[in-house]
């Protein structure tokens, strides 16, 4: 591993000063960055550790909104009573990700910025990868693409965004408050991640000196009747083959509002407005749920080895809708 300068910021002002002077990369829990440094995929010259910054490790439950500090750990958020009760899709997305060891380390802000698990990206220079080495090509396009995207891919990259938390956030129209040299501003989580296009190495709209401070999630009836349904190769501690973040507002069995977002199958967290619209106004039963599940994958573009996710994903969405409907009734 390449050596680096290591600093600790104890406040946002200190972080701002470091960023302005030397442009250090931000290090939070380290579960992605340190991992990729060991693989020599990330090679930062300077790291500034932000985990000592005070005031970013709280969860606040307002009447209409949950506010998560960016340095809250995944495990703390997953176990928080207000999160479990008011937005189960968020708690489930977190508790079904990684292992408890990693959830104790990884932060909610860092989690959003985790990088793909594409084996061609992670396994180094033996394979071309436009994300790792821009312009070198994409080994996955003609390769083993079982884990690659059915949505949002380009001729440059079909790597899947691997996270769960961002998928749940997108389903609930969450936003992040970001601080950098451009000042403080707010970004929809849905616009945080970029499509790969011709520049798959540029993964988010954040500037290098910008840090996520808070994640804010509107919560109401919709968030309460929600679930994160994640299908994996093994039952626990695996990335999603396909996952569905679903939230419902039902009125006497009829769907007033629906949210459907997919994980494990797209190059970024993937909302499916057409399927949401297709469900609105209808009475929800298993047959309708499966029809909408199939609708969710109508625009899928499978490769050579990942076509099975269309049928699997339709069932996952259908199951998620039925779980969310159950929660709506029990509310």
């Amino acid at each position, binding site marked *: *591993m390449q*050596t*680096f*300068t*290591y*600093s*600790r*910021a*104890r406040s946002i*002002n*200190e972080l*701002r*000063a*470091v960023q302005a*002077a030397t442009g250090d990369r931000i*290090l939070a829990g*380290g*579960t992605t960055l*340190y*991992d990729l*440094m*060991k*693989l020599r995929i990330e090679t930062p*010259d*300077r790291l*500034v*550790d932000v*985990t000592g910054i005070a005031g970013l490790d709280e969860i606040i439950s307002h009447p209409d909104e949950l506010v998560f500090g960016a340095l809250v750990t995944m*495990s703390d958020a997953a176990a928080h009573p207000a999160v479990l009760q008011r937005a189960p899709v968020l708690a489930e997305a977190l508790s079904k990700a*990684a*292992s*408890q*060891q*990693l959830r*104790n*380390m990884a932060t909610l802000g860092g989690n959003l910025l985790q990088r793909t698990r594409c084996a061609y990206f992670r396994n180094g220079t033996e394979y071309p990868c436009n994300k790792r080495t821009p312009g070198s090509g994409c080994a996955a396009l003609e390769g083993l693409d079982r884990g690659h995207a059915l949505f949002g891919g380009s001729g440059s990259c079909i790597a899947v965004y691997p996270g769960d938390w961002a998928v749940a956030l997108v389903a609930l129209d969450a936003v992040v408050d970001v601080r950098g040299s451009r000042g403080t501003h707010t970004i929809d989580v849905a616009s945080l991640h970029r499509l790969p296009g011709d520049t798959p190495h540029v993964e988010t709209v954040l500037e290098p000196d910008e840090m996520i401070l808070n994640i804010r999630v509107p919560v109401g009836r919709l968030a309460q009747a929600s679930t994160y349904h994640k299908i994996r190769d093994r*039952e*626990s*501690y695996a990335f999603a083959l396909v996952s569905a973040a679903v939230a419902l507002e039902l009125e006497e069995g009829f769907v007033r509002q629906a949210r459907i977002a997919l994980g494990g199958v797209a190059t970024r967290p993937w909302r499916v407005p057409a399927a949401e619209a297709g469900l609105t106004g209808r009475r929800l039963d298993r047959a309708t749920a499966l029809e909408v599940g199939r609708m969710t994958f109508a625009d899928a573009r499978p490769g050579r080895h990942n076509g099975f996710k269309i049928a699997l994903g339709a069932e996952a969405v259908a199951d998620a809708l039925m779980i969310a409907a159950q929660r709506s009734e029990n509310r």
Partner: protein
Amino acid sequence: MSEQDPSPRDRSNDLAISRRDALRISAAATGASLAGFGKTMAAAQPMPVALPGMSLTVHFQVNGNHIETLVDPRASLLDVLREQLALTGAKKGCDHGQCGACTVHVDGRRVASCLTLAAKVEGRQVLTIEGLSLEDGSLHPMQQAFIDHDALQCGYCTPGQIMAAVACVQEGHASSDAEIREYMSGNICRCGAYVGIVAAIRDAAVTMGGD
């Protein structure tokens, strides 16, 4: 052997030299005055704790013993425990946070020590398998339960399994076999001793609950 004092080899001489170097080099690099070092910095920008190629001093507790040691900024907590403090209980399996063999507790929470930068444990309390046994030298109930239930074959993953298992119980995640399996999924056992491991945790959870 498990009660071995984890104090590092005497490094006081290295420390003195290195601190001077650290002072000189970081002051030069940032243009800050030496007088400001060690006090609350008035300047907004924190001085680097370590520059490339230099070590940094980290103070933390391991199994109740105070440790002050020099570490490479790249070093993982796992490497410092094993290579500098001779605490070889925590194992290097994958070195990427995927297998759980390196599990230790930091401030009472289980973490993957291979993905924890040693620099990040400044001021924290680390507990390893070597510090788990009771004060009278007897085994922790979880260690005894692993023996009683034959919860291992080769034993390589066992220190990580036991540290994760103790945390699993302390977190309140051992109320059923299904919950134990879910919350122990970060610890891989290639010998496949999972049946014994779950039984040991179920058993030790009862004993530990009496604490």
